């Protein structure tokens, strides 16, 4: 069944109501203009945590609601509509999933309740260069006594400047490119030898580059199995990727709605521009493309909730579809708004900018099409 449950419909309605009341796009604009180093508004995030959305994939035993991934997708979509900036994907989906799926009881107890109540922020530290390439993890974690010493760097860590703790993908053996030898570590942001530096990206959110200079951690920092963490890493990344796709669909839906609305008010040549047939057909093509993209995202999230074998291919299908659609939708948004959309004073630029960042995050369409092809054996 591809439709939302009653519970999910309620969640969507409450998220929609909250966003309308608390997070218009103008709030994001204010945050951006304030040049907040964390790149999100703390009061807004507090309110989000109070709504319970930081705990949607976390079991009740650790302070969450365990509504699941389709549910957090519903929330992210609504937030995405208004480009709400909040550390959810890295923390409440990505890092939380790592702990739920692979964490020890001690790790879970230490961090999940805090993540769920929004008092701690966790982040996923995966990329080591300009592109998403989880198969090429190189950051070295050398065995030292019972623990490990980490040396290397991570780049473009989403929500990395605000994070209290990192889930770090490192290499305990093997060469970059080999499956074996991946280990996930849970490392507090204040660990000795770990430093971070902010990166300004076009979407005005908080990204960080991390440098590990002989960071020493104990064996209790390992999440899941040491040296055989690839499967866990893949699961975590699939969950974070699907969450990104959900935010993308919300962003894209609003880009579409805003554009249609503009077509119904802007007059040129004595006519509403929405009455020009060439533009009507553009709108129809865009709408049709949206109807093709949307179910792929819902299906991927649903499949995660049902723990189906086809999760990896469905996630790649969803991310590629969401990437392509949001790229198309934001290009059309700018074009159909004409000059006004080119101004910083209009919101269209926010959608375009966030769109391109999310397209690159957790894999471009090229990455996911190739991954899909490999999975199905092409």
């Amino acid at each position, binding site marked *: 069944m591809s439709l939302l449950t009653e519970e999910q419909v309620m969640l969507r309605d409450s998220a929609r109501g909250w966003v309308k009341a608390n997070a218009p796009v103008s709030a994001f604009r204010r945050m951006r203009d304030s040049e907040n180093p964390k790149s999100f508004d703390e009061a807004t995030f507090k309110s989000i945590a109070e709504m319970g959305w930081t705990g949607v994939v976390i079991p009740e035993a650790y302070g969450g609601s365990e509504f699941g991934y389709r549910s957090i997708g519903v929330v992210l979509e609504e937030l995405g509509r208004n480009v709400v900036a909040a550390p959810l994907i890295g923390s409440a989906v990505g890092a939380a999933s790592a702990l739920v799926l692979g964490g020890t009881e001690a790790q879970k107890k230490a961090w999940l309740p805090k993540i769920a109540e929004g008092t701690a922020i966790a982040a996923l530290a995966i990329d080591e260069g300009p592109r998403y390439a989880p198969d090429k993890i190189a950051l070295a974690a050398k065995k030292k006594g019972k623990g490990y010493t980490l040396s290397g760097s991570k780049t473009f860590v989403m929500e990395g400047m605000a994070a209290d703790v990192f889930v770090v993908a490192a290499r305990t053996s093997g060469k970059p490119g080999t499956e074996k030898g991946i280990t996930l570590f849970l490392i507090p942001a204040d660990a000795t030898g770990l430093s971070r530096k902010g990166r300004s990206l076009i979407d005005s959110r908080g990204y960080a580059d991390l440098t590990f200079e002989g960071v020493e951690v104990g064996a209790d920092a390992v999440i899941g199995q040491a040296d055989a963490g690839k499967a866990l890493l893949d699961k975590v990344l699939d969950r974070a990727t699907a969450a990104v796709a959900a935010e993308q669909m919300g962003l894209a839906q609003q880009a579409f709605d805003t554009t249609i609305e503009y077509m119904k008010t802007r007059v040129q040549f004595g006519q509403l521009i929405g009455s020009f047939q060439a533009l*009507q057909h553009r709108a129809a093509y865009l709408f049709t493309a949206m109807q093709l993209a949307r179910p792929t995202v819902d*299906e991927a999230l649903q499949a995660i909730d049902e723990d189906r074998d086809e999760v990896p291919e469905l996630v790649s299908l969803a991310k590629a579809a969401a990437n392509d659609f949001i790229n198309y939708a934001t290009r059309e948004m700018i074009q159909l708004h004409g000059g006004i959309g080119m101004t910083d004073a209009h919101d269209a630029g926010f959608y375009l900018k966030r769109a391109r960042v999310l397209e690159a995050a957790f894999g471009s369409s090229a990455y996911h099409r190739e991954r*899909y092809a490999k999975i199905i054996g*092409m």
Partner: protein
Amino acid sequence: MNVMVDVEDTRRLEAFRAEAEAWIKANFPESLKSKLEEYYQNMPRYPDGPDWALWKERVRDKGWGTPGWPRDYGGGGLPTPEARIVLQAFTDCSAFNPMIGMGTSLLGPTLLEYGNEEQKKLHLTRVSRGEVRWCQGYSEPGAGSDLAGLQTKAEDKGDHYLVNGQKIWTSGSRFADWCFCLVRTDPKVKQDGISFLLIDMKTPGVEVRPIRTISGESPFSEVFFTDVVVPKENLVGKLNKGWTIAKRLLQFERNATNTARRQLAGDTRPLDVVAKEYIGTDEKGRIADPDLRQRIIKHMMEFRSLKLMQQRMLDETKAGQGPSEFTSVAKNARARIQQEREELLVEIFGQQGLGWGAAGDQFKQEEIDTTRAFFSNKAMTIFSGTTEVQNNIIAKRMLGLLDHQ
């Protein structure tokens, strides 16, 4: 709790599915299995033979050709979910519904909504029992996208209508017994001068001329009406109010083509399998042509999206009412993707995909079938309302964009 009801529902329906499949497997004649392709190729002409007659008889007696229609009209009298299961079960058991055609998919649902009791009793029963085949008299040479511009006229002659004019693209009219037809009963107004008329094809003055298409086949005809006498009881709905009925029927049509088996291409081999066979693989086992490979990947992913979208729409329809404007979105997406698929297949086959004539030692059946489908499915974006007309519908009815004021 709703959840519990759902669970019970599901259990009951699963039991019914098992029952339906068992019945089909037990009753579908073995010999017809090999006729599957022939059946779909030749639609809407039925195959011949005693097994065929037997199968029709068996299905007729259960009313399963039209499982959701009332028993009074020869149907199965089943609730919608069960009826859907029966129809799905035909496909799942590699059988087919022997009653399928425009009678079951288009005229039937329309008469159920707009016909009077006599019309329903007479015509639906015949359709349910597989006794009568229907064709569609809609398009005219001057009225394609602009269907409401049709000119075939029906004059009131007191006790009958006198019909004169020409229809085109009437699929299956060569084998049809009856035609549901849009006719002009008032020349002064456009939409409001159209009526919906049922015409017996054996009436004197009806002439059918097949049209050869670019695929080399002749699945359509022109139909000429010259002083054709039609009894007044064959008018469906009110005089001059046929346009509303016509539009409703078009929704059923888009819905039907959206779920039509052959056009869903689910029955032919996956593109990547074909591509590996014709093009070979590189050292990593990938399709050897990197440019074509990327386009195949993209297409296959979009094809999967399409299937998910169709499932979504089915679920939404299930939760709501009948087909809506949303069918325009589905029709456009499916038609485009299907055409892209065939363009890709022809490219994959290379010059083997360009054969003309019958299959043999130079061209395989699969190749020839694909080439023909490539040509004939160019019509998917034209017939049942062009892509452009559907885009107008989407823009205006779904997105609320207005015409110039």
